[in-house]
């Protein structure tokens, strides 16, 4: 089965907030305060001046066993067999937000106006027209890639292979099997959910990885 997904080379992400934030939001006309992807600042960790920091753009991880699909009472949230991408059918969605609560990565938003859930579909509309997803298209560091992770010849599979297993990470798995991958060679991967890490930092906590 095909599994389209976004892969991020974090050594190339320079935290510019352009493609993954502004381009995504304008492309999908997303409300203020909402977004389909979040850019997390992972750090700085350590003690001045011996520090590390990287940025992590996070969107739907297109899980193999998606809890969002599992909990959806109407079937609006489904994994598309064509491309492996998890989508929400707005005509069927009743806006109960079960999917939003179920997502361990906080990658689903609620569209207040339409009263439906909303998430990254790897720019299905753009892909249908032969274009790259908006975030990939506009990523200043060319950190973001997309493709079929099950196809060894895809851009993402090749990038993962070139990086070497020891430099490829995925978000914490709760049995949902996230398909997204992150490449990181030049800093130590922080094995926490980005949102939890950010909250810990905001509360003045110290990361002891």
């Amino acid at each position: 089965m095909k599994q389209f997904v976004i892969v991020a080379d974090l050594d190339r992400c320079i935290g510019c907030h352009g493609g993954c934030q502004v381009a995504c939001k304008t492309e999908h006309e997303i409300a203020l305060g909402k977004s389909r992807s979040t850019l997390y600042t992972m750090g700085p960790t350590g003690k001045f001046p011996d520090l590390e920091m990287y940025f992590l753009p996070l969107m739907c991880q297109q899980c193999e066993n998606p809890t969002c699909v599992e909990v959806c009472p109407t079937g609006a949230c489904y994994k598309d067999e064509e491309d492996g991408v998890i989508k929400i059918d707005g005509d069927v969605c009743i806006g109960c937000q079960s999917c939003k609560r179920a997502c361990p990565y906080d990658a689903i938003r609620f569209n207040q106006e339409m009263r439906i859930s909303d998430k990254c579909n790897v720019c299905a509309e753009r892909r249908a027209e032969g274009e790259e997803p908006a975030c990939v298209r506009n990523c200043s560091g060319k950190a973001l890639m997309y493709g079929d992770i099950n196809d060894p010849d895809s851009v993402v599979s090749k990038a993962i292979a070139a990086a070497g297993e020891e430099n490829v990470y995925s978000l914490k798995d709760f049995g949902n099997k996230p398909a997204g991958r992150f490449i990181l060679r030049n800093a130590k991967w922080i094995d926490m959910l980005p949102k939890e890490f950010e909250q810990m930092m905001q509360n003045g906590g110290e990361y002891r990885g």
Partner: protein
Amino acid sequence: MEKLQRTIDALAIGGWEEVLPKKSAFESCPKCDGVKDDEVKVIKTCCRACIANCGVLAYVKNGRVIKLEGNNEDPMSKGRMCAKGLAGIQALYHPNRNKFPLKRVGERGGGKWKRISWDEALTTIAEKLMDTREKYGAETVFCSTGGGGNPEIWSIARFCNVFGTPNWFEPGCAQCYLPRVLAYTMMYGGVDPSIADSNALELYFPDDTPIKCLALWGTSPAYSCPASGGNAVVELRARGVKTISVDPRFTPDAAKADIWLPIRPGTDVALLLSWTRYILENKLFDADFVMKWTNLPYLVDTETKMLVRAEVSSDPNVPDTFMVWDKKTNAMQPMAYPFDENLDPALEGEFVVDGKVYKTGYQLLWESVEEYTLEKAGEICWLDPKKIEEAVKMFCENTPSGLALGVATDQTPNSVQAAMAAATIDLLMGNVERPGALLQRFRTSGVLKMPNYPVPVATKCLPEGQLQKRLGGVEHKGLHIWWAGHPSSIRDAILTGEPYQPRVWIDRSGNKLGVVAESAKWVEAIEKLDFIVHMYMYPTSFSAYADILLPTEEWLETDMIVETCNKLFARQAVTHLWETMDETLIWSRLAKRCAELGHEGCQKAFDAEFMGEDLPYWDSMEEFFNNFTKVVGMDWKEFAAKAPFEYLPKDEWRTYYVYKNIDEATGKPQGFPTPSKKLEIYLESMITLGRTGQPFAAEMLPPASKDYEPLAYYLEPIESPLGDGELQKEFPLVMTNGRVPFYHHSTLRNVAALREMYPVPEVWINPDTAKEYGIANGDWTYVESLRGKITAKAWVTEGIPPRIVYMERFWNPETLDTKTHGWKEMNVNVLTKSTAPFNDVVGTYTLRGFQVRVSKADGPPEGVWTKPEDFKSWLPAGHGPTADPSKEG
């Protein structure tokens, strides 16, 4: 079947679809001829959200811009756009755009305005200008620009020359880029290595540039220009190029660097001098290159500090002949240009001839850096000497290397010396015009005669004698390289009436009060002025104090010629809104009104024969651009239709070793465009500049109060954390500034998509320091200096050294109509210092490296917006394109 959904949300940051005009408005969309209703037309243009000019594809439907994307044809941005550029649609359709010319009614600052016609606006301004000129002299009118978003800056200098006033200024200039331009122009003669100013073009060829190490000194391209320079550095790192970041902030580029030197703000020159000392002491420089292509072997008369000349040349193609100390004959000998192989010049040494003491340039350079050991630099700069050594070794052992100097060092009174010290390092290392070096003279199209922008400044139009009246122009003669005045001298003249009283201010810029140092002092000055005009795309704090407001165009409404590497691009008006007008035309129209009212200088400015290469003023942008596009055999229309295109193949454009090219006039290598044709590390011409204004001033000027120094020296910041005086007790922390990726200068704080991501400025505080002052992460925090008090939100982070704090410039458009006018709450320039000491050469004041204190605040300032929904009223408003008023009669 898959459903492709388009959801519209009331708070959608795009929101275009529902506000698209129902009827076609093609007649006013210049590039949409023949396009049908609802058809999407893609127009190739260029961004101007900052100064990088990235290539853009603008998607237009029914005359309305619906999407922006980077243009893959751009050799620098390579098809990427950053947050600032992508937010261009929100800036364009902002409901609070300046839409029509406005005239103040009621008292100044009262916020009451009346719509007037362009005709009335221009007539009112011209009459006031003429009246002021007649009563008090043209010099009492002054103009200014800056603040970001400018299509070009030379129109302001040109108008001032034509009108007869020597006074225009930019809060940039001496505080931004000019010190670097000056030092590299004088020492090298080619292009400076500022990445954010779209230089260091070698970096954009990652696949074949041999550069091995890049020092990012006071710059983080990831933040200043992510799509172009930011991306270039990413590509180089991915190919193994080593990077060094010299920056007190742990920026993305610092985080990804091999070595981070978190320097104390304002001490860069001490660190640069320690690098030079290390390079000289350990003989790490390119000895052959230094001997043959720099002026360091030349002898200097220690009494006059001038180089010793065997012969003064009267031929401009031939440099003067300088003296060296020949080791073979043990005597002073003339060194024929470029190099006399029969001589064996001493690089080091002091020589006495007839009782006079001579030293080589090298010797004087060594003496100027001798005290700056790694340990001493470590002490001054708050750095580990071992780390400094590691960095300088990495830079010297991995050549070709390059030192990309950013804006940081331009923002202290030690500005020009920092640029001189930085240039010295690359020149010593031979990082000049060889493949991999940042300092290059790649070819240009010849379309633009002026630096970066086309408008000729027409210095000949300034009446004789007026230049002597340029405020600050005698003391800070380096400003003449950009024909600019000195902001603090102009401000002080307004406050004191000395040497004369400026009365009328025409400003084209973003928020002046957000970018000039010590904003409150400027408001005092504003209150003394007779008449103020402000032109911009939207109202800013400064507008609140104006008498007339003129609506200018957003970048999506303007045309401009853009040169990017070996290609020419066209910024093209994609649409037009309200009654906005291109600034370049506004100045022309104003000159025309003054001409009609009898101003002889303005009348002559329309005379093609008199103006010659300076061009007569223009009636339309098309007419203006035709003067330039003809260089490539096209008129503007054809140029715009074909752009972007290559004016030279890449390999012909990328020319190395230009100095080795044989000059047909002399049969010798052409050398560098400096007086000696050598790299002038010992910058004798600084002395001449200070005494006469030459080679930049159009007239001979009286000497500055003190000679400018030919070699860099370190100045401890006037407000220093060293010592235990009253200042250090009251204000114990060092403040610095620096970019965030959301804004350029004072622009875009009114754009919802950006403000929701960075709603208020952060003050970065190290956890140890924060603890001392009882501040926790996210706390509202007062920040105070000797000059004022503001509020910011604390980011308690290890990413800033203890006892140093950082803040980005900010203002709050949401409180524009309150008594603060948005500049008092969170504006770090309330705290900065606009008074002496200034940099001797260019008059730089203190924007970085001054003392502050922090304390916990109760909450945010009144009326300041912090939550994403707060910005709702700034979302794009529903209006379609309009006719351009400049095209109507």
